[in-house]
């Protein structure tokens, strides 16, 4: 069974729903504490959940990206291990330099919480569950600083918003590292894994932790 380490910083919010989602996929979830210099023994993959780590102080994800556990996440990623960062976790991965670009305040200047249609762009990573480029999946967003800024040609754009709501460069919703093993996205796949929530498309993304 795949063991997924769910990182918890002060101010993380979505660790429980993320753990429930990966358990629903048949993996086991263990907590990785921000102050620990190592990942829990036996961790095969890492999930950095959403929330407001360190109160979003300075910049979203900036302080978390320098936390002791991130050195272990970096080693795991550099060894080819799978890492996904969701929302604040995406901000943390960008601030850590494990993914290119940065997340800025939404162009709407408001917290946006709604279901979003996402187009699969690069279908060659483990994070789209075999969906082909051009296919659409539906996953909610809930963020205030969700506008990705960067050079799309320097990133593997995996998911793009159908509608330009947040002011993200090229409508980018999620990107992967060059090798494809690190993924970051602002939408919340863990909130789209149960038919009760209206969509199970999130399983395609989180399935990348297991494959």
């Amino acid at each position: 069974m795949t063991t997924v380490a769910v990182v918890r910083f002060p101010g993380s919010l979505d660790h429980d729903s993320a753990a429930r989602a990966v358990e629903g996929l048949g993996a086991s979830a263990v907590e990785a504490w921000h102050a620990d210099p190592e990942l829990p023994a036996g961790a095969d993959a890492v999930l950095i959940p959403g929330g407001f780590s360190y109160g979003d102080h300075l910049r979203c994800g900036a302080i978390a990206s320098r936390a002791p556990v991130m050195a272990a996440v970096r080693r795991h990623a550099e060894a080819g291990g799978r890492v996904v960062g969701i929302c604040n976790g995406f901000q943390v991965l960008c601030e850590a330099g494990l993914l290119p670009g940065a997340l800025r305040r939404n162009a709407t200047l408001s917290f946006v919480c709604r279901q979003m249609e996402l187009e699969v762009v690069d279908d060659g990573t483990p994070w789209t569950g075999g969906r082909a480029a051009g296919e659409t999946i539906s996953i909610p967003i809930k963020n205030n600083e969700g506008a990705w800024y960067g050079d799309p040609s320097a990133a593997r754009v995996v998911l793009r918003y159908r509608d330009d709501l947040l002011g993200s460069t090229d409508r980018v919703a999620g990107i992967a590292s060059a090798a494809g093993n690190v993924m970051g996205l602002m939408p919340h796949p863990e909130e789209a894994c149960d038919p009760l929530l209206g969509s199970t498309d999130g399983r395609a993304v989180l399935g990348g932790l297991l494959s």
Partner: protein
Amino acid sequence: MVVTVMPKAGVLDPQGQAVAGALAQLGFGGVGEVRIGKRIELTITGDDPAGQAREMCERLLANALIEDYSVEVAG
């Protein structure tokens, strides 16, 4: 030390735009661009406080992709 961190020229500053709109609504004419950044005051002991402050900017206080910083000795 005083560190000033500002959004880079060319990076959309929606906060500044919203404030510019509000100033215009209050009747302030002639307001062009408004840009909003941060001022960070640091007390640093040691040999090279300005150098240390610059290193802090490089490593944490500013994100070079979207922000510029400047370092001044507080007067």
